[in-house]
């Protein structure tokens, strides 16, 4: 299975899980409570762990209209990558006109991320609880769960969980499960809205944002599934409990997917603000690794030594020019060439452009081709200058952030692997090549989904 979360200190029973476990050596088990079990938590097991789904009016957090306040007071931010304040979004949708719609985004199009899959596999009812509470808070009459079409087993399993709840009378808002084309940009929120409205799963450049006018032209709350799971716990245990883990300006816990040169890859739950070095220790990262990729394929390369001291939080990583993204950490083995790895990923990202915006459709292949040339030592002398110029030209030129993300990755590679880049540009072996570089293959690059299939 995907999780190797063996911190093994889960508190049996409830309430509340993982409260106050902020010791740096201990990962608090909130969302990951009971994940030692290989199968999904049944509805009964879920209620044993966390208690029943609180009902509006029956809990201090859930007097009418107060869930959004509780989530805002908890300081929860989106766990899908953008780190936007979830309470602000709930309030915006709740105050928009007309009945609303909730979309649970489980697309996880980031190839190096597995946390949404792990969460939905182990604790589907936590996500469904959160979606139901959010639906009550914004007065939505339907919840759409969006999952990648390739994840057929997951789709079946979530459908079963939804049926179990219906049979047991848990939850107050009807749920529809959807399998969406799994292109990299299809998890972008305007792409999901367009697809749910009967169109293609490609981003839209409308200036109408989904919180005002989304699915069926109605106010639409789109949250990552992990974000919804945190809402389920805030609804039960309140904002003060939520803040017992994490930092004052970035409270709570987060899921992170750790891979690459580590002995224990998998999904970890950590207090936000845990130093990246602790995550490297827990996962037994190779001590000679020189670099890590943080945030996924829209993310940022950092030197391993400087990264180790940085707390995993949007604010701290932001100061280093990085972002936790969807919580991805990849450790580059010492013998792998970061430029070759980046070139492969850029080739993948260029192919994943929706092809709608000229600068993305033409600029990303150009950057990817230059990177491939650089990686193989066949580039001309002007390659580094040309890449830097194109980085400056492409950012902010798409309807979505696809070109911005690819440029961030490429630019950080040229910074962190600057010496290797100079060696490659001068047709000399880079440092990993001198260690006997095995020709890449650390960063996973999925085969593209049927190219024409966007509906």
């Amino acid at each position: 299975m995907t999780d190797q979360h063996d911190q093994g200190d889960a508190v049996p029973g409830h309430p509340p899980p993982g409260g106050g476990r902020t010791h740096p050596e201990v990962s608090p088990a909130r969302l990951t409570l009971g994940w030692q079990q290989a199968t999904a938590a049944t509805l009964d097991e879920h209620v044993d762990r966390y208690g029943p789904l609180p009902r509006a009016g029956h809990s201090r957090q859930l007097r009418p209209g107060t869930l959004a306040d509780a989530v805002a007071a908890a300081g929860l931010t989106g766990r899908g990558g953008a780190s936007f304040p979830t309470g602000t979004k709930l309030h915006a949708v709740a105050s928009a006109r007309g009945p609303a719609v909730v979309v649970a985004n489980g697309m996880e199009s980031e190839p190096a991320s597995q946390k949404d899959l792990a969460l939905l596999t182990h604790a589907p009812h936590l996500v469904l609880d959160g979606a139901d509470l959010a639906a009550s808070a914004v007065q939505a009459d339907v919840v759409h769960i969006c999952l990648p079409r390739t994840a057929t087993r997951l789709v079946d399993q979530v459908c079963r969980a939804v049926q179990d709840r219906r049979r047991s009378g848990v939850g107050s808002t009807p749920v529809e499960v959807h399998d969406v084309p799994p292109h990299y940009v299809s998890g972008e929120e305007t792409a999901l809205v367009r697809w749910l409205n009967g169109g293609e799963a490609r981003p839209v450049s409308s200036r109408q944002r989904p919180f005002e006018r989304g699915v069926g032209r109605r106010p639409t709350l789109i949250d990552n599934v992990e974000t919804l799971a945190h809402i389920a716990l805030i609804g039960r245990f309140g904002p003060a409990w939520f803040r017992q883990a994490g930092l004052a300006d970035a409270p709570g816990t987060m899921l992170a997917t750790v891979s690459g040169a580590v002995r224990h890859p998998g999904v970890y739950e950590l207090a936000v603000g845990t130093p990246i070095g602790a995550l490297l220790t827990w996962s037994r990262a190779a001590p000679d690794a020189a670099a890590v990729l943080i945030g996924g394929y829209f993310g940022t390369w950092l030197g391993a030594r400087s990264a180790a001291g940085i707390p995993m939080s949007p604010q701290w990583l932001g100061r280093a020019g990085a972002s936790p993204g969807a919580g991805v950490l990849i450790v580059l083995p010492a013998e792998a060439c970061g430029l070759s790895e980046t070139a492969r990923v850029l080739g993948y990202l260029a192919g994943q452009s929706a092809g709608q915006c000229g600068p993305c459709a033409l600029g990303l292949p150009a950057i990817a081709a230059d990177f491939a040339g650089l990686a193989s030592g066949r580039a001309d002398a002007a390659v580094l200058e040309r890449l830097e110029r194109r980085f400056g030209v492409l950012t902010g030129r798409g309807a979505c952030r696809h070109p911005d993300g690819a440029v961030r990755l490429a630019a950080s590679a040229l910074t962190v692997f600057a010496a290797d880049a100079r060696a490659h540009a001068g047709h000399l072996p880079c440092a990993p090549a001198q260690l006997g570089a095995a020709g890449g293959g650390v960063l996973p690059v999925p085969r593209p989904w049927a190219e024409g299939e966007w509906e």
Partner: protein
Amino acid sequence: MSRRLHIDPIACTGHGLCADLLPEAVELDEWGYPMLRTDAIGPGLLRHARRAVNACPTLALRLSKTTDQPSSAAQVRG
């Protein structure tokens, strides 16, 4: 009153007329797609900007009144 120039990147197919008609605000990248030197259109440029907007074959170039709303709304995502 100041106006804001906006390109719809999906609608734009890179005809490039805007860069001919409004070089003060628009230049083309190496692939022929427009880049804004500035999106703030003052009164002195307004007539030229309107002409460029009207000339765009795909209606990708737009002028809007300057408000803070589009940029703050665009942050509510993810």
